[in-house]
């Protein structure tokens, strides 16, 4: 096996660090107590590529795209354990991409969510990046453009559909949807009994084969009535901001707006939605393209995922 350029640099840096640590240990006795292999392994998990790969693989294990079976989960688990050795091997990522893609694209395509497709695209990007002369630069470019384009399409859709911008969509979902009503219920903006009654009324009309389809009155709480249109526009502005900041060739401090807009979107949106894996993939893509300093970049991105996960679990525990 041959090392890629980036991995050779990392090896040299870790060796130098280990040597420095060994020297220091003679004086301080602290760094030297950490075995060299642990520092070597940790360095390969905790640098930027390692964190991106780890987030991606954990997502593949815990929430694989629909259609991809247990084999892609097992393979992702093996790759995660072997990450220090295979982190930039094109064949390792290629194998996971092939196994995942086979499952996804032989499944019923119209039963797949957009993040199932995105998962395969991202694994493909990791494979292609490993084949490039500069894997980190290639992955950064792929990650930035994927986030930018997908948010551009998402914004476009929300502008194309008239029932989103006028607040109808949110007014309905915040009165009926089991996941989305958790936040307004937790804030005491919506009565849980009312949302249950709404669900029963709507379900009876939609699913009772003996009932002729008919209009159903839905009780919308006054707060949600007022907020649904502003929330819709806030979503459009946030998604549009993510698209613009990731697609525009920003330089210097302006690139901070990428993380700022994406973090804001992820923290506002995903605690209520049952698609944490989508948030994790977006964070992995953002991290691959970040211009933030280390280790602040890795820590901030991981903290956002943990915050979303914590809020999501908290909402479930609090509201049910």
């Amino acid at each position, binding site marked *: 096996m041959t090392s890629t350029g980036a991995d050779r640099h990392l090896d040299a840096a870790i060796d130098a660090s280990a040597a420095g640590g060994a020297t220091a240990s003679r004086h301080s006795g602290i760094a030297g107590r950490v075995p060299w292999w642990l520092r070597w392994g940790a360095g390969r998990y905790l640098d930027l590529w390692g964190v991106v790969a780890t987030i991606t693989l954990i997502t593949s294990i815990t929430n694989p795209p629909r259609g991809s079976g247990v084999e892609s989960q097992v393979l992702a688990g093996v790759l995660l354990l072997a990450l220090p050795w295979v982190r930039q091997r094109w064949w390792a990522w290629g194998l996971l991409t092939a196994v995942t893609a086979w499952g996804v694209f032989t499944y*019923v*395509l*119209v*039963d*797949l*969510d*957009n993040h199932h*497709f995105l998962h395969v695209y991202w694994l493909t990007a990791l494979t292609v990046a490993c084949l490039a002369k500069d894997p980190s630069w290639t992955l950064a470019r792929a990650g930035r453009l994927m986030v930018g*384009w*997908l*948010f551009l*399409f*998402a914004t*476009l*859709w*929300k502008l*194309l*559909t008239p*029932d*989103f911008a*006028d*607040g*109808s*969509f949110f*007014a*309905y*979902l915040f009165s009926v949807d089991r996941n989305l009503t958790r936040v307004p219920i937790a804030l005491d903006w919506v009565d849980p009994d009312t949302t249950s009654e709404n669900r029963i009324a*709507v379900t009876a*009309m*939609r*699913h009772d*084969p*003996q009932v002729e*389809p*008919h*209009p*159903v*009155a*839905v*009780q*919308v709480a006054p707060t949600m*009535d007022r907020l649904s249109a502003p929330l819709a526009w806030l979503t459009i502005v946030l998604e549009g901001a993510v698209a613009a900041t990731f697609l525009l060739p920003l330089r210097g401090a302006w690139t901070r707006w990428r993380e700022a807009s994406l973090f804001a979107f992820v923290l506002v949106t995903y605690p209520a*939605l049952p698609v944490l894996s989508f948030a994790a993939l977006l964070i992995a893509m953002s991290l691959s393209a970040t211009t933030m300093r280390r280790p602040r970049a890795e820590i901030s991105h991981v903290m956002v995922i943990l915050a979303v996960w914590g809020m999501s679990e908290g909402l479930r525990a609090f509201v049910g």
Partner: protein
Amino acid sequence: MLVAASQVVLATTTDLTPWRGGGFGMFSTTDNHDQRFLRITAVTGAGEAVPVDARALFQPASPVREEFVRARARPTTGNLDALAAALAGADLVLEDGTAVPRGPEDTDAGETDAGETDTGETDPSSVAEALEPIEVVDLAVYRVWFERDTDTLVPELLVEHRAVP
């Protein structure tokens, strides 16, 4: 980009729900695959029109789940014909005047002596009645819109189709 752009064209020019098809239209409209619903009537050889419980067709164990999912998300003539053909080939039973796919408990009753009384006679009340062979399937796919002025969920007939499997 090609897939996402094609999905925009497909969803805006055909009956594909914006939520599906590899694009990024999720959470943009109430015309969602999950909000869509079907009314299906199976006409048997005896001329009896029996409503089919469409929701039961979506259950994981349903033998027509794939065809149902396709027909709901993208109700083309081909997809609706495929669903009708799958229904005609499926083992449907009658429950409260509605046709549903035969479940494991129905199968047990049909294949073992679970439906027999102590005397060995069949207890008609414990054995699900099989639906007679289907000659025609009438399918209607609805989507829903939420009217803000009246806070009312309004169903809209998207496609109506008669299939002869």
